């Protein structure tokens, strides 16, 4: 295996580094990393940069493969990777989007003061936990026919609104209004439809969570005001994706494309980077199926939002003045989108793969709600369990330098097996509860794997993207209730 050293990087500035295409003969573009020196140094402990180098060999990849400071080793693409490909000569790669298609985060704001709700937090945790199905293989409250599921996949969050699960504001405050156009259920396998039928409105397991937070600090008064975030008030985050439905779509197409790679004569450094020309029948079929998965995930987070709103009403109505939750924003961090970006000074439509990276469109960009036009798109960066989460906004620089993208979380540094060896779930639970954080978790080993020690310091990650000027700080959130599958 090729070892990558600090001397292989060219330092562009304090938070930007580059590996030249001369580094390896098959690279087509540079790899550009947005990170502090310390985070970059840490990243050399795993294969994330090597995976970015591998990604830079994809046909039709443009400008540079970007890597965010929360990078860590994935499979094929690194987590925290962004790659844009040419619509005519480029490819689309399911591995560059991931199995959990449109895994993403939603943020809800409230006007509930911490002091009003403090005594009710344990009850609120129990009620949310009861109303939001979580864990593996756990069905949701809805069981759709395959034809209804197909309809939902085409309509996205609009389907949820038509059924009374969403408001117009919810849709407006969702990336792409909660619906990627061009979804085609005909491109889905029977197996995907079977897995998806009963999984809408479920949290799942792993690192997915629902969190009730305190808005602890405000850094950008105007943006926070526009988003409805005020210091001392309660907010809610939801982190989940397209569940087994999305996993099956990716599984189907990664398998199918193994043969397609041979057909088109692509020579790839990793089988998980399989891809198809975007304008080929195979590429278009994957895009249409992937969009179904993305729309499923938008609905999934919307249904969970609906259940959380019910839980707030059930627990807090009559006890606090205003228990309503308003949607700040919902965005994807595992997605492939056709977007317009500046390439060599000219606007061009490209296919942006974001694998563990968040869209971060700057002020005035197309595709963000009018309310946020002046401040830029909200960027949601959840921290590890028990640590802070951040609300940022995209900038003009993110549009120029990172295909309008930013980091998506803290990023792991410790393997799950190491975390389980070093951290005892019950000890972690006691520690978090002693700090006043209510935890509801499906399993203690699962909790240990998600311990804060297994992740980077999210504050350092945020300092890197702010230092690189691809995002600005708006608010810092502190966890009060964490629900994990």
């Amino acid at each position, binding site marked *: 295996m090729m070892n990558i050293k600090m001397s292989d990087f060219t330092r562009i500035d304090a938070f930007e580094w580059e590996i030249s295409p001369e580094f390896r003969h098959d690279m087509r573009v540079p790899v550009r990393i947005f990170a502090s020196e310390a985070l970059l140094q840490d990243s050399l402990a795993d294969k994330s940069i090597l995976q970015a180098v591998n990604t830079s060999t994809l046909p039709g990849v443009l400008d540079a493969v970007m890597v965010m400071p929360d990078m860590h080793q994935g*499979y094929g693409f690194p987590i925290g990777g962004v790659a844009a490909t040419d619509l005519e000569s480029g490819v689309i790669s399911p591995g560059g989007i991931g199995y959990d298609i449109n895994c993403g985060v939603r943020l809800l704001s409230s006007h509930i003061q911490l002091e009003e709700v403090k005594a009710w937090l344990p009850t609120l945790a129990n009620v949310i936990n009861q109303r939001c199905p979580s864990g593996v*293989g756990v069905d949701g409250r809805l069981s759709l026919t395959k034809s209804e599921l197909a309809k939902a996949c085409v309509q996205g969050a609009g389907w949820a609104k038509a059924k009374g699960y969403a408001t117009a504001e919810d849709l407006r405050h969702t990336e792409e209004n909660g619906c990627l156009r061009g979804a085609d259920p005909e491109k889905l396998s029977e197996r995907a439809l079977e897995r998806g039928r009963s999984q809408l409105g479920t949290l799942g397991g792993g690192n997915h969570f629902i969190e009730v937070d305190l808005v602890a600090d405000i850094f950008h008064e105007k943006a926070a005001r526009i988003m409805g975030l005020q210091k001392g008030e309660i907010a809610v985050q939801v982190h989940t994706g397209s569940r087994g439905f999305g*996993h099956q779509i990716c599984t189907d197409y990664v*398998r199918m494309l193994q043969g397609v790679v041979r057909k088109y004569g692509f020579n790839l450094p990793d*089988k*998980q980077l399989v891809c198809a020309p975007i304008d080929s029948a195979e590429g278009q079929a994957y895009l249409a199926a992937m969009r179904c998965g993305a729309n499923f995930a938008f609905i999934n987070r919307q249904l969970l939002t609906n259940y959380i709103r019910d839980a707030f009403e059930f627990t807090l109505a009559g006890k606090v003045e205003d228990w309503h939750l308003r949607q700040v924003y919902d965005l994807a961090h595992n997605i492939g989108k056709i977007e317009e970006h500046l390439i060599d000074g000219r606007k061009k439509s490209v296919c942006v793969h974001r694998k563990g990276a968040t869209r971060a469109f700057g002020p005035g960009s197309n595709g963000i709600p009018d309310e946020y036009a002046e401040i830029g798109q909200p960027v949601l960066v959840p921290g590890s369990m028990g640590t802070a989460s951040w609300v940022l906004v995209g900038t003009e620089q993110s549009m120029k330098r990172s295909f309008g993208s930013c980091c998506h979380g803290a990023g*792991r540094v*410790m393997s*799950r097996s190491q975390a389980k060896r070093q951290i005892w779930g019950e000890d972690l639970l006691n520690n978090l509860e002693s700090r006043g954080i209510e935890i509801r978790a499906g399993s203690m*080993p699962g909790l240990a794997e998600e311990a804060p020690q297994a992740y980077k310091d999210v504050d350092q990650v945020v300092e890197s993207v702010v230092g690189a000027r691809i995002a600005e700080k708006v608010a810092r959130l502190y966890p009060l209730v964490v629900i994990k599958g």
Partner: protein
Amino acid sequence: MVPYRYEEISHTADLALRVRGENFHDLLRHAAQGMYHLMGAGIGNNTSIDEAFTISHGSHEEILVDFLNELLFLCEAHGKVLTAFQFSEGANGLQVRAVGHTLDGIVRPIKAVTFHNLVVNQSGKDYETVITFDV
């Protein structure tokens, strides 16, 4: 000689297994055992379940991924954990007959079996590979 059937190896975000077998079918059996172990898949009762499916022709890597993904699907969608396997070559691919039990909970979900750097190596009669799972 196969000194171990499977062992978990370090991966920052996901899970990985090194698996060995005295032949390819043995490798498949041990990979199945290792995957269920990683998932912490519990067996519900003593009632035995029979299952049969076919894995299409392909490379060793493709057959391995297809086989494990089939088990994941049966586990998640139908609540089945398969514990004993018989393999035979058929006209349409590898025919698998299996016996198992109903699932009684999973500690850690696996989303999919990946092709990440997947190579099935043969040394003498032994087979060995490293499989990365998305979790």
